[in-house]
């Protein structure tokens, strides 16, 4: 697929999703409210609803989706496995556990980010280290390791929440399912995202070659070890940042790169930035649905991504089994 129409389409999609998200909610808003936002009429009720209530949440949804899709895209090349996703493989769980520990200790700010990153990186190293078979990743071992580690983090989170004061239990869904209700304007998320995109472009061609196997990549002059370490860190930072904004939302990193591959996008220099745009739009749409479907009740957005993600994951797993079956 040619990059220009692809990106034009994705930007249009993102703007539409943003528009719909800002315009929908329990308080009716219309064109005149949007006009008052644009003209800077700060006093109007519509302006306040859109700017104070909806904009931070919409922006957080977009940034989180973009970060998760990028993390998924990076992890998939590294593992040469289209089923890799930060949630499924327990990386989000590690980040959530790290963040929760710091919160229980009464710390915040940079500690929160740091602990989430440490948790994510620890999971990443565990999953990758334990599932690295003789020279290659064994798919079954990878998935099993990831799923078990994810389950382990889930138990740790449950334990920490059981120890914590009663009123914190509302937050359980946030850490286990992903929820954007508490999101504030995601400044650090934007910074990470903007720093990550050039990295994606710079590493893109090397990642394309890594997709053909590590030996091939090394024989063509890719510094495989350095690249792998860099991708560990990048995917961990993206996942950790997304988790501190919105908890552990699943399957965005799985579905988004796969949808783009179905559209014929294979070059990672295009696939990764396109994943960011599509992932952002997708989570924005999912969150708009999550807060409007059962109004006035708000659903955690992770329920909706799982609704699409679980069948997609099973389908991909089935496809992979078919392929391996044919090969021998």
């Amino acid at each position, binding site marked *: 697929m040619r990059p220009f129409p692809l990106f034009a389409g994705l930007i249009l999609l993102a703007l539409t999703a943003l528009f719909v998200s800002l315009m929908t909610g329990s308080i009716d808003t219309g064109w005149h409210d949007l006009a008052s936002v644009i003209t800077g009429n700060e006093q109007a009720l519509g302006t306040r609803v859109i700017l104070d209530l909806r904009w931070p949440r919409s922006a957080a949804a977009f940034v989180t989706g973009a970060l998760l899709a990028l993390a998924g895209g990076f992890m*998939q*090349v590294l593992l*040469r*496995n*289209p089923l890799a996703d930060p949630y499924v493989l327990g990386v989000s769980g590690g980040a959530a556990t790290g963040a929760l520990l710091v919160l229980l200790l009464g710390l915040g700010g940079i500690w929160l980010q740091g602990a989430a990153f440490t948790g994510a990186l620890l999971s990443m190293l565990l999953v990758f280290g334990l599932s690295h078979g003789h020279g*290659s990743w064994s798919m079954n071992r990878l998935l099993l390791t990831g799923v078990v580690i994810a389950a382990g983090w889930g138990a740790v989170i449950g334990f920490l929440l059981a120890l914590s004061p009663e009123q914190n239990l509302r937050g359980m869904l946030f850490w286990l399912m992903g929820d954007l209700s508490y999101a504030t304007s995601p400044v650090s998320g934007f910074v990470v995202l903007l720093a990550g995109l050039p990295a994606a*472009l*710079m590493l893109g*061609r*090397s990642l*394309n*070659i890594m*997709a*053909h*196997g590590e*030996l*091939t990549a*090394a*024989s*063509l*002059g*890719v*510094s495989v070890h350095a690249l792998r370490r860099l991708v560990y860190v990048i995917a961990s930072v993206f996942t950790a940042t997304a988790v501190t904004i919105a908890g552990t939302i699943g399957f965005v990193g799985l579905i988004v790169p796969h949808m783009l*591959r179905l559209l014929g996008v*294979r*070059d990672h*220099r295009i696939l990764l930035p396109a994943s960011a745009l599509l992932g952002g739009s997708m989570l924005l749409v999912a969150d708009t649905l999550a807060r409007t479907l059962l109004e006035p009740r708000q659903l955690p957005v992770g329920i909706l991504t799982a609704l699409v993600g679980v069948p997609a994951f099973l389908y991909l797993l089935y496809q992979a089994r078919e*392929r391996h079956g044919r090969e021998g």
Partner: protein
Amino acid sequence: MRLIDASRLDVSIGAVSICRKLDLHIDNGQHWCILGRNGSGKTTLLHTLAGLHKPDSGTVMLGGNSLHSLPGRALAKRIGILLQDHLDTFPATVMETALIGRHPYLGPLQWEGPEDYTLALEALQAVELEQMTDRNVATLSGGERRRLGIATLLVQDPALLLLDEPTNHLDIHHQVRMLDLLAERSHAGDKAMLLALHDLNLALRYCDHFLLLFGNGETLQGTADEVLTQSVLERLYGHPLQCLQAARGPVWLPE
């Protein structure tokens, strides 16, 4: 000119010793063949010379530089390897796969330009795949995939070509076509080749130097006349052989 100098090389994999104190010097214009039984370490030795496997001891020098001191992309311009297997987990077209051979020649932020596509297309024509540039590699047959691997190596255009069983999956016609092509490119570019082959007769037809791996660390090297005697070959393969004289020279058949 000397392309690669391996001296006092000890290589092993697990508990198996592949070679001990091996001195191997390859000059341009030479075509070497590694012969040995399954598991004797042909692949590992090729990987060692490509910088993909660390020897236990000894050095591999390219010109005046040690193999591991050269930056990856500079090394990839001098040594290229056709691996035994190709891994295609993600969809890629035939053209995209051939183009990865240009990686060592492009800057980190540089995109493939028209001249890169021309070089890739030329290599695909040479292996008769130019009709299927947009095909997904997953849909290729084993032999077509092998030829695509050879095309990628031609695009990479290294001075020393290491080929791990290049005739795998190829029919008789394409075995000869591909080895002709590689020999011709090697000759035209004043390059050298080192092949691992199981077919003794193809090896005799295309190679002038032989390295025999006996699987216990012992090696033997030299020209066909020097090393390829009946008793040596029977010991190498652990199988009785018969030598027939054909128009092209000797032909070896298993008893």
